[in-house]
């Protein structure tokens, strides 16, 4: 059987060549797929305060403007961000040492003062949160930062998919009528996870 060694050599050569072509083609194909793929992002929004309303809405609206496919899953306190009326959103400086406490009015030297009010004092003053919220809203306005409602509208316009967590809707005694009609879907973890699996970016906020 003199032909056997030749066949082995030919097989090895074919295999080597196929591997070469395959790896080259695969790289080209992957690059092509990557270039043509619409980027996607999923976000879990879990916070229901004025300050924490910003990260999910800023990122989602901007991604929408970039042409990405975006879904935001609002769960627990994050459901507050889907309510028809957002004017109840508040900020709490209590136990938040990272929050500068500065006045949004008055002369420059006055605005520059950081009011270090101890937690114990904040806690016993009635209406302290409302007071801080008013100041924060003024600061937001003074700095040309968008209102939460404006950013949420931009998300809707940009085709961002707003999803409510049904379990927390029930848990907190909400009904779907409490939320804006743009929320098309109410679902649970089993719906969110497959979406997150296929997304390029997934964030928990």
């Amino acid at each position: 059987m003199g032909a056997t060694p030749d066949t082995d050599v030919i097989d090895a050569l074919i295999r080597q060549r196929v591997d070469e072509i395959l790896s080259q083609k695969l790289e080209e194909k992957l690059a092509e797929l990557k270039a043509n793929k619409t980027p996607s992002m999923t976000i879990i929004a879990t916070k229901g305060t004025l300050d924490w309303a910003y990260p999910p809405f800023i990122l989602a609206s901007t991604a929408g403007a970039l042409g990405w496919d975006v879904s935001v899953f609002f769960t627990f306190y994050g459901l507050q961000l889907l309510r028809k009326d957002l004017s109840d959103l508040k900020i709490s400086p209590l136990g938040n040492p990272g929050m500068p406490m500065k006045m949004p009015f008055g002369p420059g030297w006055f605005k520059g003062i950081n009011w270090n009010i101890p937690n114990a004092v904040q806690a016993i003053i009635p209406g302290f949160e409302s007071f801080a919220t008013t100041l924060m809203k003024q600061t937001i306005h003074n700095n040309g930062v968008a209102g939460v409602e404006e950013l949420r509208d931009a998300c809707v316009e940009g085709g961002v998919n707003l999803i409510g967590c049904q379990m927390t809707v029930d848990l907190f005694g909400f009904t779907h009528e409490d939320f804006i009609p743009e929320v098309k879907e109410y679902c649970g973890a089993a719906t969110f996870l497959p979406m997150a699996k296929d997304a390029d970016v997934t964030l928990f906020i």
Partner: protein
Amino acid sequence: MDFDKELDARGLNCPLPILKSKKSLTDMSSGQVLKIVSTDPGSVKDMQAFCKQTGNELLSSVEEGKTYVFFVRKK
């Protein structure tokens, strides 16, 4: 530089200049040029990234004192 539409984004902060640019471009036709005037220093980098992602062409990005002027040609 000639342009077809102008967007005044002065006084607005991130991400509003980008969101408003996107909105303005939506109403324009392919090849038309949008001029954007902004005061947000962050918009310089953001406008580059926005154009790169969306395929619109950033024709120029110039700083004039405390304002930033961009010309974007719609894809």
